[in-house]
């Protein structure tokens, strides 16, 4: 069957799926949805449909993630009128009401309705107009939550594999030119121009070359790669195939951490489908290009996200970085020229090849083209996975997409780039987010973690958290990283415990400098960033810990005490019941008190109090 014929067949399948008068329930069931209970919700729906005799008439389909983590479990229901309503926070107990309302009565179930995907409803906003969605441009996430990720027809019908056929028509050199023209830069963190990188690998002469998809997403709090792999695996695999075609590699590896079992399962399904359709194997679609894809499961070492370590790991060796040169484009996996791109990059590649470089380059800023996904987390109202055009301001991301700081607290900083990144203080809220601007203020794009920090988060404690991560994840090979992370962590710990000295601030800067300039790989070169940027912008907080023995954010246990404001305390006893060490006493309806000897500064009382009567100092 020709590609065009196959595409027609896929189109037909997609039309059936999208048939407006057919009842349909889509359940967001990526790992995040599953963790929130999506599989139980699906079961509840199945049971309820059976009761109503609607089982046959209704499609219940698992889809990927729309990125609205704060609203999990998300369910989209299409009623007989063709209207599609997106519901948030769905639990199994809601199944009956939802089916009754939309599938039986034909009305949106307002208590849970979040948005209208199609059609209008007076009481429910349109999806595209949601403040979280409106500023977004979804290229990498184009299919996530929209298609059935296990159905290649859905992907094909939405333009899938047209990038591949277009690439075959262009020839490898033109594909590389197209990549260069798109301005796409590596989304794994370093931001190296993808087309240029492919050019290096293409120019290496060898009997065998490799392409690798780096799916070893390791930054704490980053999950965009997982989301794409689970929600739209073909977008990534198509990108990998195109990369292989461009550089002349016949084998591609997907290096995915074993902690992502669903992503691996979806990849395996997708690879089998590709093979079935002749998108893998010898002479793909008569192009003369042959390609195979293998999955290598990683054991979860953070350093294996570093390209040379990753290749060592594929080779069966201990994941430890190697010095460059030689660069992978010259001598990489098994000593052969190798090109590595991360998941997000490859998902963008397939879109660029489908729609053209100019279309992609139309988004973003001069040096940072296109879009970037971010895992928005921390003290923010709407946590989630978002995709925005480069150059969007932090303010738009935080206030519009994210809905502002949680509980109306004061915005203090935003941390980007995970353990390798830095903190951007509130003064830069209007910063345009792209590679250059982030670097100018001392942070990095990284893989796209974005953690919002409010007034109650301690910057020293946050730096300590990231250093505890890198101290543990340093492979141990080079001295500055192995020893530097240990010293930084120890000093940060002593500071958060009120035992620090001002001299340590200078020593930490010096250690950070040595790590940055003398470490072997990116892990060590960036591991001091959380310390260096917080020292740059929040030295006052460090000094408060050291000199005043106070944690201004009220977060460092050794330096704070909790007291109950007798004027505000109603004597409700909520704090007393919440206290794990029975440090709180008081008569009913009388102000309570905290025994400082017993108190372990856990803050449970403060969380439990409804009258903000628990004060921290």
């Amino acid at each position: 069957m020709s590609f065009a014929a196959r595409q027609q067949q896929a189109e037909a399948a997609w039309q059936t799926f999208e048939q407006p008068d057919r009842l349909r329930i889509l359940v967001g069931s990526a790992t995040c949805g599953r963790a929130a209970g999506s599989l139980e919700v699906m079961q509840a729906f199945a049971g309820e449909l059976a009761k109503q005799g609607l089982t046959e008439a209704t499609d219940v389909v698992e889809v990927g993630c729309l990125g609205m983590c704060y609203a999990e479990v998300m369910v989209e229901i299409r009623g007989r009128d063709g209207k599609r309503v997106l519901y948030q926070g769905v639990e199994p107990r809601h199944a009956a009401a939802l089916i009754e309302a939309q599938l039986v009565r034909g009305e949106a179930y307002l208590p849970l309705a979040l948005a209208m995907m199609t059609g209008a409803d007076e009481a429910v906003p349109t999806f595209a107009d949601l403040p979280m969605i409106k500023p977004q441009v979804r290229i990498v996430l184009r299919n996530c939550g929209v298609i059935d990720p296990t159905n290649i027809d859905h992907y094909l019908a939405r333009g899938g594999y047209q990038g591949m056929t277009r690439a075959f028509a262009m020839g490898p050199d033109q594909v590389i030119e197209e990549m260069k023209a798109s301005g796409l830069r590596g989304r794994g963190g370093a931001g190296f121009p993808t087309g240029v990188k492919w050019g290096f690998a293409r120019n290496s002469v060898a009997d065998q070359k490799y392409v690798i998809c780096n799916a070893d997403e390791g930054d704490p709090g980053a999950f965009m790669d997982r989301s794409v792999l689970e929600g739209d695996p073909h977008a990534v695999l198509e990108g990998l195939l195109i990369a292989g075609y461009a550089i002349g590699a016949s084998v591609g590896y997907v290096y995915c951490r074993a902690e992502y079992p669903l992503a691996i399962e979806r990849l395996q399904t997708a690879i089998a489908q590709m093979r079935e359709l002749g998108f893998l194997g010898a002479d793909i679609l008569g192009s003369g290009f042959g390609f195979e894809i293998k999955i290598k499961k990683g054991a979860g070492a953070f350093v294996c996200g570093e390209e040379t370590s990753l290749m060592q790991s594929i080779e069966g060796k201990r994941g430890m970085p190697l010095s460059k040169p030689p660069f992978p484009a010259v001598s990489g996996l098994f000593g052969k020229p190798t090109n590595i791109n991360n998941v997000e990059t490859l998902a963008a590649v397939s879109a660029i090849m489908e729609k053209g470089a100019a279309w992609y380059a139309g988004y973003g800023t001069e040096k940072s083209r296109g879009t970037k996904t971010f895992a928005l987390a921390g003290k923010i109202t709407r946590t989630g996975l978002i995709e925005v055009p480069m150059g969007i301001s932090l303010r738009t991301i935080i206030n519009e997409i994210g809905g502002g700081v949680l509980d109306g607290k004061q915005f203090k900083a935003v941390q980007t780039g995970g353990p390798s990144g830095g903190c951007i203080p509130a003064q830069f809220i209007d910063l345009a987010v792209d590679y250059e601007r982030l670097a100018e203020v001392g942070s990095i794009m990284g893989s796209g973690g974005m953690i919002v920090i409010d007034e109650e988060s301690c910057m020293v404690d946050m730096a300590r958290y990231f250093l505890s991560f890198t101290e543990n994840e340093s492979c141990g090979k080079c001295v500055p990283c192995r020893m530097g992370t240990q010293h930084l962590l120890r000093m940060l710990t002593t500071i958060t415990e009120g035992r620090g000295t001002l001299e340590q601030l200078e020593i930490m800067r010096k250690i950070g400098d040595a790590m940055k300039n003398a470490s072997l790989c990116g892990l060590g070169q960036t591991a001091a960033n959380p310390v260096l940027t917080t020292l740059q912008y929040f030295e006052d907080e460090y000094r408060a810990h050291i000199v005043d023995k106070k944690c201004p954010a009220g977060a460092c246990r050794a330096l704070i005490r909790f007291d109950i404001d007798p004027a505000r305390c109603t004597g409700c006893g909520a704090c007393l019941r919440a206290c794990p060490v029975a440090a709180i006493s008081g008569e009913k309806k009388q102000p309570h008190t905290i025994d400082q000897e017993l108190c372990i500064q856990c803050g449970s009382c403060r969380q439990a109090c409804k009258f903000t009567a628990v004060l921290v100092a």
Partner: protein
Amino acid sequence: MGSISLTIDGQQVEVEEGATVLQAARKADIVIPTICDHKDLNPYGACRMCIVEIAGVRGFPTSCTTPAVPGMQVTTQSPRLTELRNRTLELMFSGHPNSCLVCIHREACEQYRPKVTKAARSTRCGFCANRDECDLRAMALSAGKNELSLPTLYASYNLERDDPFMDRDYNLCVLCGKCWRICEKIHGKPAISIINRGKWARIGTAFDKSHVFSGCTFCGACIDICPTGTLTDRFARWQGKPETDTPSACILCSEGCSVVAQSKGGQLLAYTMTGFNKEAGLCALGRFGAAQIVASNQRLIRPLVREGEDFIPFDWQGATASAAEGLKDCGGSVALVISASTSREDRFLYAQLARQLQGRMLLLPAEAGSDDPQVQTLAAAVQGGTVRAVIANGNLLPVEMITKIPFTLVIDCLHSPASNCASVVLPAAVLSESGGTFRTASGAIKQLAISSQAPGDALPEWRIVCDLAQALGLAGFGYESVETVTPLVADDPAPAPVSGDPRQNVRDLVPRFRGHLLADVVPALAAFGLPKTPAETSEETAGEGFPILEKREIAPNMHFFKVKAEKVAKFSLPGQFVILMARETSERSPFTLVDWDAAEGTISLVIEEVGRSSRELASLKAGDMIAHVSGPLGLPLTIENKGTVLLGGGCYGIGAIFPLARALSQAGNRVICAIEASSAYLLYMQKELATVCDQLIIATKDGSEGVRGGIQEVLAQVAAQEPVDQFIAIGCTFMMRMVTEISRSLNIPTLVALNPIMVDGTGMCGACRVSVGDKTRFACIDGPIFDGHGVDWDELASRRSAYAREEVQALSQSVDLNALMHQPHAHSHGGGCGCGR
């Protein structure tokens, strides 16, 4: 390959294409510091010391990994590079015990410290076996670095000694990776690699298996390449830096591997590989066994002649005459039984002797013992009376056969059942003590070089045979040297090859050398499954002794013991000590009482692991018995109210000052306790001491806690603030000596607890005599506490070090300390490692 030209520090350098910047710099004699680079290994780039600046290249690339490119402009020295290198060096040293660099008393200590302290873990300079050879220390010294602004992060790993030959102290490791890289280079699949991550990253075997089962072949390359004292040969560890390297060959089996014999002061320390490559590989026997065989206390050191039931030591002339006498009438009925592990010259001369005596000569395979078929045939001849005298150069004859031979001459290096019932025994030089040539199983002829002295009266076999032949009146044995024999040897056959490949598998090691079971000579070899003679019934009486109630390592090498010893506890007084014997056969060694409880019937001790006897004690655990506890011994301290008393304790003295402080406090003194250690991680008993004194002052040599320095500095500081009426110091001889000099200048009455070598502890032997105020006193009954200002410290130091060499030898001699110390690996268990335990 062509050559390329680049500029380094303004100097034009030509190198082969493919060379690294570091290699190019070396070619131009430009020194760039590095620890992880080695000429026989591929670039690794871990230590980050060799960073340089290259025009047009971002950052600071490592010269060891950067290929030289034509026209490259390299700068190896700049203020920025120095700054970064110094910080990296400081980071590296913060993960390695560093008092050898930062201690302010280092120079004086090196001058006065009489001998190395043979501890388990190397925690400070006097405790480091590798100080003289440490590349890390040399690099730091050349960088002029002796200050550390970072705290020392001591990893506190146990010393690993669960294999026969290596001590591995990963607390010293800087992860340069040379060991596992050389292992990979030589063996393909390395037995060791880096395990774990981050701060727990260290070298280890897969799943923390013992090296015996890890595929390790014990070639010793990792030890030889280790730049720090992390990996050491347990036998050679404390012998110091080798003085001479002599190329030679090993004749322990017919392979005849080429070796480099390392020796010092006439003693063989080790056979090492001739190069870091697969072809130069050695087996465990050659690498580790040879030196221990040569140094064995089972060596024959004197000619012995049987007189009835007894052996009488003879001089050579007398013994040779006796041997000639025994052989004289046996012409035609003599048999020689010679091992193939004998040099060509010696074999030639034995054959000459056999020919001239019209006897026969049996040449036994290298691995053969007295059960060899040829020997069985000989037994028949003995039975039939056709053989009346036998000469053997090893334990090659069964005892029951010897008893039937009228005259047996054994020329050998080691005691054995055969030598025990021979008529005459002549001690022979062996291995590194004897020259000549050796034909290997592959037919090659290898030169044997002399690199160590034979013990006692032992002589090379060629000399013994020539002397014997001349005593027998035979002609043609007038050789002056072994070299004059060499040209005469021709057409000697190549010996049979060994079965298996002992260089690739420790299970293939040959079990015997000249008929001796090697595991009898080097007991640790039994770990590889080598057979040994079953031990006779143990002389130890199980279940008797003093039970250990509690035992903990409270600081590295410092072991706290609580022992049930009711009578000792009942009479103990502050300042007294006990003498312990770990086992019935152990040496007696004295230890100061740290605490006692008469009601409970217990005594407490802090024992520092510093040598053989303390190691035996340290290997015991709660529930075990100490064979003997004698005490309390020595004169107690007179407890009276002196006013302000300053007690200074270092090493074991930190524990030892505890009962003094308590008693002096109770007597109404103002008691100040000062304790010193090289670094904070070596301190212990701070809490306990704080409860028995008015003030506790801590001093560390690296400044990691309290005052930077030692008791010297504390004494000066305290004396400057308040009058000190009495000063008492307990610790190493060096510390006590230094503090008494200061207290003398300050006119502070000073007492010290001396620690000379002691044997009986009751005033009988006099081994512990010391000179105090021009009088000879016995530390055991007149002390141990003396007026510090009267002590002859030089004499004490010299008497303490009188047996330094024997003490080092005792660490590995005959007793299988390895088995004694066997502790299964502590290995945290979440199950994720997959080791199956």
